[in-house]
């Protein structure tokens, strides 16, 4: 029954939206609600950052923070079994193999994902999720959405996140207590990742004139790039106008 749920959801969605080509700036009919959620997320991020770094006005180059990196590594490692399942659903055995090998190395030699010896060997892993699986199955991205805590997404990718929770192999391998611990660690890993990229977030989103519009643009462009959607419309010819 549990296993059948994602399949049912997917069938319903596939029937609902045959993929039209994505609009360059995405479809955003829920902009008012999205903007409100975006503001709420930003307030949360700024509270988290000011709690962690009291003097953020320093102009020192960003230094690698080993603790933050370790927390982020552990979270990333716990997400790898779910990536392997999606690789298989996408019929990408080569990606599944690379992610499995990475998980095996980092879980053992890397002391449960604390360190990243696989990355040092050039095995950086292939990040993926059920949103990508849906894309491979022909589902369009749908409308742009801003999710609580998780930030920018689309209808397809938000559904993907829900399905990812259901098909995570860790659900079957761990005891309920271990599952809670794994969830906490992944949450901490996510926050560590956000903190690691905080200078990029500041410069490219938070300090811009319209952070919401910039975040939407950056999310949709990087997401489509990751999915391999050729954005021919995005080629800008500055010489065409004159």
């Amino acid at each position, binding site marked *: 029954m549990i296993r059948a749920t994602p399949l049912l959801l997917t069938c319903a969605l596939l029937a609902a939206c045959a993929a039209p080509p994505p609009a360059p700036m995405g479809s955003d009919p829920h902009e008012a609600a999205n903007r409100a959620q975006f503001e709420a997320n930003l307030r949360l991020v700024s509270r988290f950052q000011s709690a962690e770094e009291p003097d953020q006005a320093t102009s020192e180059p960003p230094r690698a923070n080993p603790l933050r990196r370790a927390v982020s590594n552990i979270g990333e490692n716990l997400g790898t079994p779910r990536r392997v399942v999606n690789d298989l659903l996408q019929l990408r055995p080569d990606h599944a193999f690379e992610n499995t090998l990475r998980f095996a190395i980092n879980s053992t030699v890397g002391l449960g994902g604390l360190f990243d010896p696989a990355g040092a060997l050039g095995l950086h892993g292939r990040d993926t999720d059920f949103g990508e699986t849906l894309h491979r199955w022909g589902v369009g991205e749908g409308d742009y959405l801003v999710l609580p805590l998780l930030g920018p997404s689309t209808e397809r990718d938000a559904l993907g996140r829900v399905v990812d929770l259901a098909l995570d192999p860790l659900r079957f391998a761990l005891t309920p207590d271990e599952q809670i611990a794994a969830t906490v660690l992944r949450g901490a890993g996510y926050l560590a990742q956000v903190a690691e990229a905080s200078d990029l977030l500041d410069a490219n989103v938070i300090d811009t004139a319209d952070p919401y519009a*910039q975040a939407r*643009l950056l999310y949709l462009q*990087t997401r489509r790039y990751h999915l391999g959607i050729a954005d021919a419309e995005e080629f800008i010819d500055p010489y065409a106008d004159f």
Partner: protein
Amino acid sequence: MPISDLSRRRLLLAGSCALMASALPAQALTQAQARQLVDAAMAEVQSIIDSGASEARMIARFEDLFDRYGDVPAISRSALGPPARGASAGQLSSFAAAFRGYMARKYGRQFRRFAGAAADVQGLREVQGYWEVISTMTLRGEAPFEVRWHVSDRSGQPRFFNLIIEGVNLLAAERQEIGTLLERRGGDIDRMTQDLQSAG
């Protein structure tokens, strides 16, 4: 009349040359020149990052580099979008200067992340009559990421006019930003230019 015949033929020749020039813009700029531009720009970026100079000094050097390797007039006019058509030459050049400084501050600060990175040209392809130079940046122990350079010699010199960083179109992001700044100032290009001098 032989004379008018000759001039007609000349006109025809001149016309077809002009047509060829506009139909094949990439022909003027060779693949090797496009690649050379990107190689040189990346080497210079790396030497600035690795110089250990102060942030203000590095940003000044990035601004100078952007001026020499990028087609700043074309990039800034494109970032301004349709309002550029109604702007005077003086307004456009003041805006171009403010935009150049703003870009150097905004992106120059982020370049510090790439201290010690290895940059390589992976290949070139033609996109809509222009050269796209595909390069990767690799930081130790991390997955490489891709930077695509769009290059043209329409300015008279080989220059890049856009960057696509892991799928993010720099010019699209700046069009959005400049568009918002302009809209908030009721379309006043002079005021926006002045405010841009302290932004980024």
